[in-house]
């Protein structure tokens, strides 16, 4: 199992944000000038349901220490029910992660609405803190797969 590292560690975190809710929240956090960690990179997708297992696992293999997928609150998906599918796929992937010795906590699915600029900043900062505590991704550049 993985251990958190002793030395100062800045995690690399990727956030896949749905265009309609969370990306808008990130904009609001921006225009409210809320402080966000430089180690967090935003990638915009149209809907949280677009995120598939391949994309997530590859992102871990490529070295992401944490991945945040964030979209509309349940029931609010711009495309009806995309985020329910996202949630279901997530539950499955978390199981896969365990078998890879990858702490399932490194992957987080959050619902952040377009009005929640402040909460967006909180979610990102808390997630970054959590990943910092978890330490580096143990399967980075892993050749096992």
């Amino acid at each position: 199992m993985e251990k958190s590292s002793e030395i100062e560690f800045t995690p690399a975190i990727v956030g896949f944000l749905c265009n309609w809710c969370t990306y808008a929240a990130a904009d609001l956090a921006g225009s409210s000038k809320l402080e966000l960690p430089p180690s967090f990179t935003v990638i915009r997708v149209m809907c949280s349901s677009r995120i598939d297992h391949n994309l997530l696992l590859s992102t871990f293999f490529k070295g992401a220490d944490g991945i945040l997928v964030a979209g509309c609150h349940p029931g609010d998906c711009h495309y009806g029910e995309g985020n329910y599918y996202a949630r279901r796929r997530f539950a499955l992937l978390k199981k896969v992660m365990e078998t890879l010795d990858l702490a399932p906590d490194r992957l987080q699915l959050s619902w952040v609405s377009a009005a929640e600029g402040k909460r967006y900043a909180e979610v990102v900062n808390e997630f970054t803190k959590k990943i910092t505590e978890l330490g580096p991704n143990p399967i980075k550049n892993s050749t096992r797969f």
Partner: protein
Amino acid sequence: MKEFEMREAGQDRKMRAKVGVYVCECGPNIGGKIDLDRILSDLSGLDDYQDVELVVKKYGFLCSVPGKEFLEEEIKSNGFTHLVIGACSPRDHDSTFMSVCSKTDLNPYLYRIINIREHCSWVIDDKEKATEKAESYLRGGIARVLRQSELFEKPLDINPDVLVIGGGIAGMEAALSLSGEDRRVFLVEKTDRLGGVSLDLSGLLPGQGFVISKKIESIMEDRNIRLFLNTRIKAVIGFLGNFEIELVSEENAETTDIMAGAIVVATGCSLSEPGVSDHFSYEASDEVYTSLSVEKMFSGDEGVKLRSGEQPSSAALIHCVGREEKNYCSGICCSYMMKLAGLFKNQSSDIQITEFYRDICLPQKDDQERYKAAEAAGVTFIRIKDISIKGTDVSFEMMNGEKSKQSFDMVVLAPALKPSADTEELADLLTVPLDEFGFFQEVHKMTNPVGTSTDGVFIVGTAHGPKGVSDSMQFARASAGQILTRLIPGEQLIPEVKVTEILEAYCTGCGNCLEVCVYGAIYSDDSRGISVVNEAVCRGCGNCFGSCPSGALRTKHFTNTQLYQEVDEALR
């Protein structure tokens, strides 16, 4: 070093990519927080790509009028094959720069906006770190834009004619509002008469003083409306702008094929059968009637009579029958029960009327007048906690806990409205989902209540859910509004461009993707044993993408290859 090559369509000759990278200062908003000169020199010196020439510049204010002109000129004079803009949120200015591209030869899908304001300069205080971050985002943008493909709008011809299913008040109003604007309408009604439930009603709400027979006449005389009585829908295929429908006659089983650009579903509702519930219990008796049968009696010549032939001298009107079990309030019963009370009083002023209600729900602004009129006419209103009816004996408990029992000559029940009998079958034919109550489900409860997940199929009147005549007509007119503004004769429709496609070679035809698409955009092509996306219907959400076990799907403009470019840069 990554290799990059672009091939000109149809030719084998390698073409050099020339990428314009323009960073907006946004005044001090980006310029003051990020060392743009460092970014300029770093990116200009970038040798990540073979055969890619980068032109990197900054500009004060790209979205201003001079900024856009500058950009247009730069694209044209440099002959860029790709463009990256480092600026603000795509929600602010993606469309601005896409329209700049449209004025040049550069396909707008070979451009990308990178948000270095909301994601960097505004949220990272340390200038050094903000600069590094912005540079990383821009590199990701360059890598990604090089993997993007040209996309083109594919305008579709449309058929402006409309099929209306159901000839009740809602269907008739939809047909008339469309034909009034010179649209051809096919009006299909399964029974042998127009009018639906409203034809049996004995007067409507205050202010609805119109005669339903006049409406029916207008339909009959309307040359734009082709009426099919005793007819049902047998099969439907297609999408907004192009539906093919097969009708079948109930009389002789003959079928007719028609084509229409949109379908309005107005198949109405029916009354639920009063049953036993936690709050009410009934035992059928000769003198217990449903509201609709009383409406029918009032609209006839003889008024309301008991089965014995005598006029009743007292009547109990019971509200909210079945509301608890159905878990919805029909929203019209309080109002029409007050109307009925008035009609009873008109028939004989000394009849004793008692209304047993749980809540008074009068959501229409004119409804309250009926209430006042009923009270003024001496109708008794009793708010009950519980009620039980045996024959025409009504036992009830009031809010203050007092229990009591009264006998009446007649009991009238107001049962909840429920979906009409054919709803399920029709929903299947139209691939429109039903809601938890069995009514047709709107695509969005608030912002698109007449639309369905099958774009081009609209639901109006009580087929959408319980409502009164005015709302039914307004829903009908709303569907007409959508059709009139979206399907314009002689004009084309432009569907979403960033759609998903299925790569035939990988698809096993398992049908997983078909299951998850809420818009029904995917169908299976049995002859080829694969699934196919109908690009006219797909909205590009990407939900199907994650469902495919064989990786056969590609969501254009959001392919994994494209997203990996962003990931790689983020993790460098």
